[in-house]
């Protein structure tokens, strides 16, 4: 095929614009691998979701139509997990984006060596593996001997230690704080880059008009950051819906179901109860939700 193609060497430019089979074929290996490791599992998930399949049992998968979906609608834990996923993803992303924005504005005019070092240090949490973040915060959240309780008692803010991760009310916010810690550097870096991309003339002309500092940020800079914020947020919302490591290593979804998100619930259904069929049905619903987000993301890209 290579020789046949090189015979048309002189036409290469025009041929490229029209499409050349040899070039197209370079996508084939990637598509082939993805078809096996991603495409096939998706189709298989769809099929499994219509079956009663208990991996631990000896029976073969039994076709049960939409029964799994029926069960799902009436399963309060599924709804609880869905709501938890939403709180975890949207809440963490909103706070992390705000912190990232504040940091980006704060360090905007820092130049030279000091500025570089400060920026690097602010990015450091990003380089900590999720599981490590989880155990690190778990240690700091300890009711007895945890750094956070000790610091709060020492400064007189609280009298008795708070059982952060053992409280059904506090566990979710506590896990989200760890998540925000890990995620804020992403928004910091993204928004710093976007800030640096604002044309100088825009800032200058605002200065000439004697715009106040506040006006400069709210009226001039924020509109320029809109796209970066939107794209970054959508990406992170998707990533957080899929977050397993942090929650699993900190609370395993507990206490009770207070930090059970969809990921945790699917994992428990599939690998603790071995209810592959039911887990797959949840997966399918989730896939549909996710496609909605992916569409929003792609639209945001195209509008950019």
């Amino acid at each position, binding site marked *: 095929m290579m020789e046949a193609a090189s015979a048309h060497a002189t036409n290469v430019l025009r041929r490229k614009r029209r499409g050349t089979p040899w070039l197209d074929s370079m996508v084939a290996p990637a598509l082939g691998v*993805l078809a096996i490791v991603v495409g096939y599992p998706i189709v298989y998930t769809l099929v499994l979701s219509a079956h009663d399949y208990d991996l631990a049992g000896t029976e073969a998968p039994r076709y049960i139509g939409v029964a799994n979906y029926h069960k799902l609608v009436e399963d309060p834990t599924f709804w609880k997990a869905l709501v938890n996923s939403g709180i975890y993803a949207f809440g963490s992303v909103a706070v992390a984006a705000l912190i990232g924005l504040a940091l980006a504005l704060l360090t905007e005019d820092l130049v030279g060596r000091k500025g570089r070092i400060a920026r690097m240090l602010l990015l450091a949490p990003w*380089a900590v593996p999720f599981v490590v973040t989880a155990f690190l915060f778990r240690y700091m959240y300890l009711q007895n001997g945890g750094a956070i309780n000790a610091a709060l008692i020492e400064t007189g803010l609280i009298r008795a230690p708070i059982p952060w991760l053992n409280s059904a009310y506090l566990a979710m916010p506590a896990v989200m704080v760890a998540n925000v810690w890990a995620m804020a550097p992403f928004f910091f870096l993204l928004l710093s880059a976007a800030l640096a991309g604002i044309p100088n003339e825009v800032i200058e002309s605002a200065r000439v008009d004697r715009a106040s500092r506040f006006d400069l940020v709210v009226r001039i800079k924020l509109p320029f950051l809109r796209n970066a914020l939107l794209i970054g947020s959508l990406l992170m919302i998707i990533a957080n819906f899929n977050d397993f490591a942090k929650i699993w290593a900190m609370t395993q979804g507990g206490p009770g179901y207070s930090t059970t998100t969809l990921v945790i619930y699917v994992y428990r259904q599939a690998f603790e109860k071995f209810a592959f069929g039911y887990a797959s049905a949840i997966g399918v619903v989730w896939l549909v939700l996710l496609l909605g987000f992916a569409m929003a993301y792609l639209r945001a890209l195209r509008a950019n």
Partner: protein
Amino acid sequence: MPTRADDVRADRRKAESTRRAARAFQAVVLLLALAWSLAPIYWMVATSFKTELEAARLVPTLWPHDATIDNYLGLWTGSLPFPSFFLSSLTTCLATAVVSVLIATPAGYALSRTQFRLRTSVGYAILVFRMLPLVVLLAPLYLLLLHARLLDTHAGLVVGFTTFGLPFAVWMMKSFIDAVPIEIEEAARVDGYSRLQILLRIVGPLILPGLLTTATFVFMEAWNNLIFPLTFVTTLEKQTLPAALVLSFTGQFKTDWGGMMAAATVTTVPLMIAFFAVQRSMVRGLTSGAVAGA
């Protein structure tokens, strides 16, 4: 009676003092921000040098009073094979990076250079694959690996990691190749280079930095992954570091936070190195597709 000049001078003095206040405010907030970012990391490293007793104190010590490296030595000699966890992580993540980049680069090249009919849809499909919840793939992938007899092998783990490594690498390589002007290739063609020569001698060296960056990103994502090793690997010796941390917490380190934090530090170091090596391309990496997809 104040003159105009006095007014101006007063104005200037006022502006000067506001500026100074703003600077001081900035410095204070920056210090707080640095403390928020670094305190947990400091706490991890400090605790890793504390004895089990000191790490469990009710009122924690700010720094190790009785500093010891026993926690790190314990990783070698303890009941859990941490050296082999480390090696497992290293081999599977490196293999994933190499495999992903090898398969992704031709695909990225094709997506960048052709305008074939399916280009946009293939590109978007790959992008959506990147966002798929891994846990949804988990059950079918488990069965797939089971039937392929790849369960509980490092090869099987690499297959799992590829599900997110490959789509990511395709998009990132495409964005790097987009940055290479096509005119360079046309000039080489006029000079009589063959298609393969152009790819290897002209385009290759130009995208090498991008290739290394992409590989590092894939490596980092794989290093972070917990759910695949936890489900696909059952033999303890073959386990990766993140999964080992979770497993060891229920065993060896149940009350030994010093040991736990030493293991955590060891898990963090390779990711730190990789992170600061590619920090400059970080934004591009995580939003790649953002730039290239438009």
